[in-house]
């Protein structure tokens, strides 16, 4: 059945899917960035996830899109790491001089931040600078969290999925989600405190 001929009111319309992707794409990119730590890879991951959603899951109700998309995104990130692992195995085999992924060491979250936009032209520069620094420290701390804790935290609080939806997206129990979230918040609080950041 063609998408244009869809009549079931429960199924997501073209406009709903379009609006959903527009709303979620930036957060999805940031999530991918925290995980893969490379802008190009993160963009590829998000694009793959969007393509999978529209190609395979467009026949789903609009209400299921957030959870479905998050599940696809997490799986795509995991696929990225699997491919990277296979590639690095071959690289190690073929070259004894392989130095591993140096990008991890060189990663600087400040580079992911853009220059200040014109809309902030009238704001206090000192305040903007401080906020930018806090933002960078928070993103750096998130990048240092264990992957499962970060996933749980972002899905639960940033994507605002409930515990059951987060558990479904992560493929684990609701109890695990609560544990991961609690540990993530405490770990973040400790890391931010160590950097002198109080929220």
């Amino acid at each position: 059945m063609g998408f244009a001929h869809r009549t079931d009111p429960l199924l997501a319309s073209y406009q709903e899917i379009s609006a959903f992707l527009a709303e979620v794409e930036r957060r999805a990119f940031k999530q991918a960035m925290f995980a893969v730590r490379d802008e190009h890879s993160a963009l590829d991951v998000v694009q793959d996830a969007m393509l999978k959603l529209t190609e395979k899951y467009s026949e789903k109700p609009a209400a299921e899109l957030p959870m479905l998309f998050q599940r696809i995104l997490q799986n795509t990130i995991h696929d990225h790491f699997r491919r990277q692992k296979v590639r690095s195995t071959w690289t190690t085999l073929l070259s004894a001089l392989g130095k591993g992924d140096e990008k991890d060491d060189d990663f600087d979250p400040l580079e992911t931040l853009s220059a200040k936009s014109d809309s902030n032209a009238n704001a206090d520069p000192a305040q903007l600078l401080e906020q930018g620094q806090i933002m960078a420290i928070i993103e750096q701390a998130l990048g240092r969290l264990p992957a499962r804790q970060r996933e749980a935290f972002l899905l639960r609080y940033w994507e605002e999925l409930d515990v059951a939806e987060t558990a479904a997206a992560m493929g684990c129990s609701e109890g695990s989600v609560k544990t991961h979230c609690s540990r993530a918040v405490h770990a973040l609080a400790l890391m931010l405190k160590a950097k002198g950041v109080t929220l």
Partner: protein
Amino acid sequence: MTAKDQDYAKKIVTYLDRGTAELKAGTAYRLQLGRQEALARLADPKRAADLRLAGANAGGGSGTTGVDRPLWASGRLWIGIALIAAAAFGFQQWQVYQQLKDIEETDAAILSSDLPIDAYLDRGFQNWLKHAVDE
């Protein structure tokens, strides 16, 4: 999770939201392009199928082929395979023919050449020749 933890998480999320609002223009543009590509496939499933087939044929390249049949059903594929097989068989036959021709030429050269002078000085050869004539 206590209420205090949840408040703390919400404060962190506020900063994360600011971070997404200030994405680099190039990054935002590439995200937009990715979204449009995904939506284009949604709007036109046939185009999506064609793009997948083109990607399979061209190793990930883009473009449409207008072909609905699977790759293995393509006549061109089987003609190509047959041509390659025929070329391999012809090459192998040519090699066998060349080897036989070389052996023939060597035999003819040996049989038609003069007897070397050393052979007349070889007593063993003289004895063999005498016995061969007697028999």
